[in-house]
């Protein structure tokens, strides 16, 4: 993959000096900058999480004397996606728009480059991870600013009791709260054995194989762990390789221990599976735990979020970033950039993370030590490892490092999950690879 691991200390040195530069050079309300600013924010799943962005924007607007209008747009029914598509077509809409995962690349020609704010922010806040760089920085141009709100990791959320009872694994010992992990043996073999044991115990792992985001993010991480690429960074179809065969074989074994209907799962299925008390492990941000905390406290008390098992090519974490982009047809671009700088400050990010109960994950390296993750309970420390404070895994996105327009198709059409289901259902390996190759050829279209 070639993603660099996040270094949290790399840029601490220059932070203080740069902060003072940022403070000394505030947004100046020039003739073109004053006036109104409209923002399309993602409508957060977590109740009350929107209040943080609302408060931050309001205080910025009052300080800069800019009239700000916020629209919280849900991603239910793809409303966020449709709004972005409509605005890009009409070349009219919000000044700042929340763009999920692949959209900065999709609308590269219609976004104002934000290098002028991203470079100082990186110096100030630490590096961003490789996935954010891959999705947001194209051809040396930062097309959007990584948004704290909405960005998430879809690592394992295990049931402490089931994992101990059926698989003999004490996840709290492997990933202790407040101490470095002891995860040398937490690898894909252990994972498979645990899946088998929990399945036998009547509480299987809940990993979906539909074509929605949670399912694709999950399988994408397994592909990375095996070093399996469908299309390489140059855009060549390389699906017929041993790593892909290995991961499909692995998934075939794993699927025997998953519920029968995982091929029909959507993004809500795994949450429901955990909250219902049936599942021993799901791959999801802490939203399922948060729902359990409200609706099924006994389940929540047993949940423990932690990094992914390591594969032959390393330990990868399924990371799904959101971005804030500035349309190049926006009327108040300098004000938009000023606001994005404000939202990317440490205190702003911390407020967003706190309001989301730890769900949101900032992309800057120096922001991984907020106390909300250490303090979340029950059980105490349940989210300590969610931001991977010891940087044990490479944050990844399914279909990377393929060129964006191809990777987006692989991701959104669930090519990898479809391959796994086909092979599991008895299709010969080579036929599955031929099918995938044919699909990928179709994605090459310009």
């Amino acid at each position, binding site marked *: 993959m070639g993603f660099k691991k996040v270094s949290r200390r790399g840029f601490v040195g220059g932070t203080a000096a740069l902060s003072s530069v940022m403070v000394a050079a505030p947004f100046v309300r020039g003739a073109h900058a004053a006036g109104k600013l409209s923002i399309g924010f993602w409508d957060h799943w977590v109740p009350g999480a929107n209040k943080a962005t609302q408060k931050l924007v309001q205080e910025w607007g009052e300080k800069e004397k800019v009239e700000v209008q916020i629209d919280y747009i849900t991603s239910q029914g793809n409303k966020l996606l449709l709004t972005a598509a409509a605005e890009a077509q009409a070349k009219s809409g919000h000044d700042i728009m929340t763009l999920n995962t692949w959209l900065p690349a999709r609308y590269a020609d219609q976004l104002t480059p934000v290098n002028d704010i991203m470079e100082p922010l990186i110096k100030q806040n630490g590096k961003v991870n490789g996935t954010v760089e891959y999705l947001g920085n194209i051809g040396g141009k930062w097309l959007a600013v990584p948004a704290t709100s909405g960005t998430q990791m879809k690592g394992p959320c295990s049931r402490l009791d089931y994992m101990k009872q059926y698989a003999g694994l004490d996840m709290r010992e492997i990933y202790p709260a407040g101490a470095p992990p002891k995860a040398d043996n937490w690898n894909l073999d252990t994972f498979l054995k645990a899946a088998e044991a929990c399945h036998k115990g009547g509480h299987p792992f809940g990993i979906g194989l539909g074509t929605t985001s949670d399912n694709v993010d999950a399988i994408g991480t397994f592909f990375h762990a095996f070093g399996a690429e469908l299309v390489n960074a140059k855009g060549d179809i390389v699906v017929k390789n041993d790593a892909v065969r290995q991961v499909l074989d692995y998934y075939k074994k794993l699927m025997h221990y998953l519920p029968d209907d995982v*091929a*029909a799962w959507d993004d809500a299925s795994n949450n429901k599976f955990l909250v219902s008390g049936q599942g021993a492990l799901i791959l999801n941000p802490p939203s399922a735990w948060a729902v359990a905390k409200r609706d099924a406290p006994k389940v929540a008390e047993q949940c423990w979020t932690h990094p992914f098992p390591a594969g032959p090519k390393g330990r990868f974490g399924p990371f799904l970033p959101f971005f804030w982009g500035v349309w190049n047809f926006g009327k108040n671009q300098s004000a938009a950039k000023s606001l994005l700088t404000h939202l990317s400050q440490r205190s702003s990010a911390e407020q967003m993370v706190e309001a989301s109960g730890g769900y949101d994950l900032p992309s800057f390296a120096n922001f991984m030590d907020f106390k909300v993750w250490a303090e979340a309970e029950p059980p105490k420390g349940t989210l300590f490892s969610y931001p991977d404070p010891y940087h044990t895994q490479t944050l990844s996105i399914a279909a990377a490092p393929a060129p964006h327009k191809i990777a987006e198709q692989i991701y959104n059409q669930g090519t990898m999950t479809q391959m796994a289901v086909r092979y599991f259902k008895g299709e010969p390996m080579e036929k599955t690879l031929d099918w995938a190759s044919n699909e990928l050829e179709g994605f090459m279209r310009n």
Partner: protein
Amino acid sequence: MADIAAPTATAVAGDRRTGLHRLMQRKSTIAFLMALPLILLIGILVLYPACYAIWLAMLNKSMSKFVGLGNFQFLFKRDTFWDVVFQSCLFAITAVVFKAIIGFVVAHFVHNIPSKGQRKWRGMLLVPWVIPPAMSTLAWLWLFDPAYSAFNWILAHFGIGPVPWLGEAAWARFAVILVNIWAGAPFFMIMYLAALKSVPEQLYEAAAIDGAAWWQRIWYVTLPMMRNIIAITALFSLIVTFANFDIVRVLTNGGPLTATQLFGTWGFKLGIESGDIPLGSCVVLFMVPILAVAAAFILRDISRRGSEV
């Protein structure tokens, strides 16, 4: 010259006024003017998007180059496209046939209920049709839900193992067709009921005098009298069912694999979700020739019967 020209000009203006007056008095002009707001509305909301979709379908992926019919040629080579064609036809034809049969049977039952209680039954039977499909399909999703399926819970009481309603291709196809039939059959029922009420009672009396059995009355009286309404209802439903989006989107999202993708859902997946708007438009436009052929056959049949009458 001026003396001569002046009255001529007045006369011409008068003629014009009279001509305009006559034009305005024509029934067809009044009808046109009254329909004009609707025509404009259709132009803005139907014609413009349709033409725009055709234009989009002829652009390349990044919408920067005109490629003519290139996208259509590309689709012909995709296996998934032919799967979608098959599934759309299977979905639409099966659903319409069952909706028509169920609608016909239920319309007869309702028709035979004494008129006092008929209104209540009509109202109740129309409920599935009047609920927004996205909402009612959510309820069906919970019934079929992998983790909480109410149907499986009931089956379990009879010792029948869990059915993967949405997890297996055949079951998933069955599920989306079933929900479509449930939502659409009341439309057929109400149309057929209206047609039944318009069949003259004397025809049934004459048939009864001739000793016709119940099925003969249906075959020789009811069906011939309802043929046009059956054809029009079937055509209308075929168009709507072919273009279905919400039921599949909510229930299966096109899965498992691509077993329940229809033109509408696959077009959305390609165009909006995957960022290939031209190819998405192209997929959706494939409905037009298929439906045009169906419409031509059905309408030709209706007009032939009309001329026979």
